[in-house]
């Protein structure tokens, strides 16, 4: 579904990603772990089009996307969340979920101006889809509140719901449980497993090994921009190099 070939990203003299090869199998959950500053977020930015790699190829669902603008990548069916939550804070929860369905919409300003039925129908459909997501992520009772006013855990779930609202084939989650307690983390893991069941491909970045163990089929380990291991969760936990680079150090 997603493949990175020899992806390198330089920021000035700093090499954040160094010849990274990664393959995320369709309808599987791939984990990406690594210490702070390893280049995990950089990788997600390059895949989602917020940034572009210095060299290398990124192929998503048959499209070469390393130079494609972000909005078109979303149109191909790739969605993401952010390590530091980035909701549209002044919009309501419901509006966040409606604006995320932009790519699926067709209605033009002219249709809106003349109240054409096509415009109204589209809006009604988008509202219905938003309500399904509100239900699923337990956000129905806050649907009219500004997104910025929600408690932290709700914001995390809204980000995930909003990513799903773009109707993706694959979703990239950047530390989705950062700042959550173990119970919330486990509950979020259940949401992630549900997405896999629904046929989505998932790439999840995490610090929390319990979540990785709970959901991942395969794990990549990134250290100083280099992939140092790629294996099943069980094997990764035994890997000497990984233990030295990452697991041995608690943070």
């Amino acid at each position: 579904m997603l493949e990175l070939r020899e992806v390198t990203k330089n920021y000035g003299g700093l090499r954040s990603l160094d010849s990274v090869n990664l393959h995320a199998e369709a309808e599987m959950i791939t984990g990406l772990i690594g210490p702070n500053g390893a280049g995990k977020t950089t990788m997600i930015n390059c895949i989602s089009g917020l940034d572009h790699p210095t060299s290398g190829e990124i192929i998503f669902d048959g499209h070469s996307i390393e130079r494609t603008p972000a909005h078109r990548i979303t149109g191909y069916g790739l969605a993401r969340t952010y390590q530091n939550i980035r909701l549209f804070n002044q919009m309501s929860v419901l509006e966040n979920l409606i604006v995320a369905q932009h790519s699926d919409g067709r209605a033009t300003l002219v249709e809106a101006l003349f109240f054409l039925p096509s415009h109204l129908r589209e809006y009604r459909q988008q509202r219905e889809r938003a309500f399904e997501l509100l239900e699923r992520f337990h956000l129905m009772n806050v649907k009219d509140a500004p997104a910025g006013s929600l408690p932290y855990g709700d914001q995390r779930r809204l980000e995930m719901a909003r990513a799903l609202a773009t109707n993706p084939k694959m979703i990239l989650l950047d530390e989705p449980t950062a700042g959550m307690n173990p119970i919330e983390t486990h509950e979020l893991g259940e949401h992630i497993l549900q997405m896999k069941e629904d046929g989505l491909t998932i790439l999840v970045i995490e610090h929390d090994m319990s979540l990785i163990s709970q959901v991942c089929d395969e794990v990549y380990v990134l250290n100083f921009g280099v992939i140092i291991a790629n294996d099943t969760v069980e094997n990764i936990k035994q890997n000497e190099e990984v233990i030295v680079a990452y697991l041995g150090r608690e943070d």
Partner: protein
Amino acid sequence: MEFIFDLLTPYGITENTFQNMLIAAILGISIYITLYAGLFSLANAGFMATGAYVSVILTTRYEWDFLLAVGAGIIAAGLISAIISVPVLRLSDIYLAIATIGFGEILVVLLRNFDRIYELIVNKEETITGGATGIKGIPVITTTEYLLLYLGIVVFLMVRLHRSRFGRALVAIRQDNKVAANMGINVVYYQNMAFILGAMIAGGAGALHGHLNRIILPENYGFDRAVDILTFAVLGGTTTIIGPIVGGFIIAYLPEILRRTDLVGLLGDIFGTDLGRYQANVRDMTVGMILLGVIVFLPQGIASPAMWRRVANRIWNLFNPAEKSDA
């Protein structure tokens, strides 16, 4: 219309003042739409000039029908904005503001020297823009009804825009353009469209303004005008469409308030001299002071619904001390 002025003239709002207020409101909306898309552009004075000159030349030189000429002014402003949007909208924030001021100044210089340039190219002397002395003897065709109609159309457009896929995309872009892109929104396209829409609204205001005063001059549409337009939006606020309208109304009405309260005379008494010839400066200073107050105390603008709700709540609580506010 007459009955409106019967109501308004006691407050010093003559037909002419009212017309200026309407134009200011429309111009306020023209910058509101670009701010709505997260663009800090000061180009709308230039687009107003485009609309004014194009439509006036068409009605006076080529005897076009007035409404057709206004339409042509709107389209001309749209075309020019589409062309300059390509280089200019790559810039953001203060850089965009500076580049758009530059555009406005270039346009003013161009209008001043248009006839000379024309003569150089075509080798024929002709008065088209009339240089620094402008175009004179323009028929006064614009009426209050036309202005009200145009304001109505523009407000309707904005209200519908607000409730459309287009408008939601703009709001998303203003809040976080990177995330908006990740939501599938083509940021460049929508910002261009907002820029062009704002230009067309300003172009129409210019066309109507051009047929209001018998004369148009390049400096009617220079830097001062660009700042004025921004002032309408900042004073009124940009959270809703009401903001730029209220802002435009207040600032266009202000000279009248100053005249009626005789602020200049009052200041003159305080300083012991006659400040009569500083009338315009006093107006600018007052606008400046009001703006400063608004930016410091009402950053959302005078017409911010949230602020008025707070004020209403506070007054309500004042008269109902038993019920403690639980907000």
